[in-house]
């Protein structure tokens, strides 16, 4: 094989000019790829784990309409996960697919927030979790439509309309149960109480998020928090409920430190692909 001629300074100048136009492959910016991978993984894992949780209700919900709505929300979320994990797999560049990321990672490698892995409990607890998550995801996706990564922006723009439905539906249930019977009200209070301590993690600004914000990949979480808190307050007020007392926040999901609940969820979700690797239908 003939050896390549030495690179001349003028060639480099030309290459620099051509790169932004896309004529050559952009140089792999490793730091950017790593942040993009982490971010897409977090987004994908949030959607995947909550989608799986909601799917657990299939056939068990209090009524057929509710069963349908939970299954359809699960579908939306798993659709989001497919897109985000595909982006993550490409950013990682190690030949893994979205399916590999979903089905062949262990619990410590999952980067979802702790809120989404919390058990379904009763229907009130599920709706409390859904409202607190969807109200956050809606505002996050609104911001992500301006993401510097075109693919993430496109997924967010596509999914944000669906997430708006999730938020609305869950808010209606929080109000209906909170403002319902003594029993439903007590259950909604318990549900909110369970989920409340996981809210701060949604707004945690660690190194990844700081770096991602500097690269124009994510909106400012602090500004999202203002609208989020206002929305949560308004819905609770309409439900005639007090906000639970602030509890010690629990963090760690973004670094792979999960509750024991996630392992059980993964054992069910990953059973088939791990028992029959490379099975297809």
């Amino acid at each position: 094989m003939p050896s390549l001629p030495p690179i001349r300074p003028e060639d480099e100048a030309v290459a620099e000019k051509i790169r932004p136009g896309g004529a050559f492959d952009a140089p792999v910016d490793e730091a950017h790829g790593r942040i993009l991978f982490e971010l897409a993984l977090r987004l994908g894992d949030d959607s995947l784990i909550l989608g799986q949780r909601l799917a657990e209700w299939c056939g068990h919900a209090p009524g057929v309409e509710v069963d349908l709505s939970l299954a359809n929300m699960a579908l939306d979320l798993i659709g989001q996960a497919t897109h985000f994990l595909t982006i993550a797999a490409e950013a990682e560049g190690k030949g893994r697919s979205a399916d590999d990321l979903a089905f062949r990672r262990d619990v410590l490698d999952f980067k979802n927030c702790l809120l989404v892995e919390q058990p379904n409990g009763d229907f009130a607890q599920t709706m409390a979790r859904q409202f607190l998550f969807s109200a956050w995801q809606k505002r996050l996706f609104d911001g992500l439509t301006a993401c510097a990564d075109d693919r993430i922006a496109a997924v967010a723009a596509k999914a944000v309309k669906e997430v708006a439905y999730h938020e609305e539906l869950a808010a209606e249930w929080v109000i209906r149960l909170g403002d319902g019977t003594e029993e439903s009200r007590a259950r909604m209070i318990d549900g909110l109480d369970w989920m409340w301590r996981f809210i701060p993690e949604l707004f945690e600004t660690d190194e990844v998020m700081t770096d991602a914000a500097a690269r124009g990949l994510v909106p400012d979480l602090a500004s999202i928090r203002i609208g989020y808190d206002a929305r949560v307050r308004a819905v609770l007020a309409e439900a005639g409920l007090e906000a639970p007392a602030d509890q010690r926040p629990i963090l760690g999901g973004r670094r792979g430190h999960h509750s024991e609940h996630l392992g059980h969820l993964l054992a069910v979700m990953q059973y088939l692909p791990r028992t029959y690797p490379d099975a297809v239908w």
Partner: protein
Amino acid sequence: MAAVRALDTDAIWDVLRAVPDPEIPVLSITDLGIVREVHEDRVILTPTYTGCPATLVIESMVREALDAAGFEHIAIETTLSPPWTTDWITPEGRAKLHAYGIAAPTRGVPACPQCGSEQTEEISRFGSAPCKSLWRCRSCAEPFDLFKCH
């Protein structure tokens, strides 16, 4: 050459117009507005919903239809952007929905596709598919699906 290409894309559109939506087979994928572009070497589709289970089915149906019509060389691409909206359902598609018993997307209160009454109410935000909600007519008491405005 240009004329041949135009004929080709017309023929491809004809093929796609005959591909039904797997969930609502009275509609073709062109009625639904999910065929975004047709070129001489590729067609571009967009999914209705992020998690729509029909997306893969649609892609394989389009592949089969193109192959059967001798367009094996046409590639199929999908794009998310700009996101699909129910505004892209064609007027013909809306009429077909109505005749099938599904109320077409509307920003107001949907009229009952059975009797035309506007005395209708929502039963469930989510219906038999992610894209439909469940309604009931207070005049004729029949339940019906509404294709959600999206």
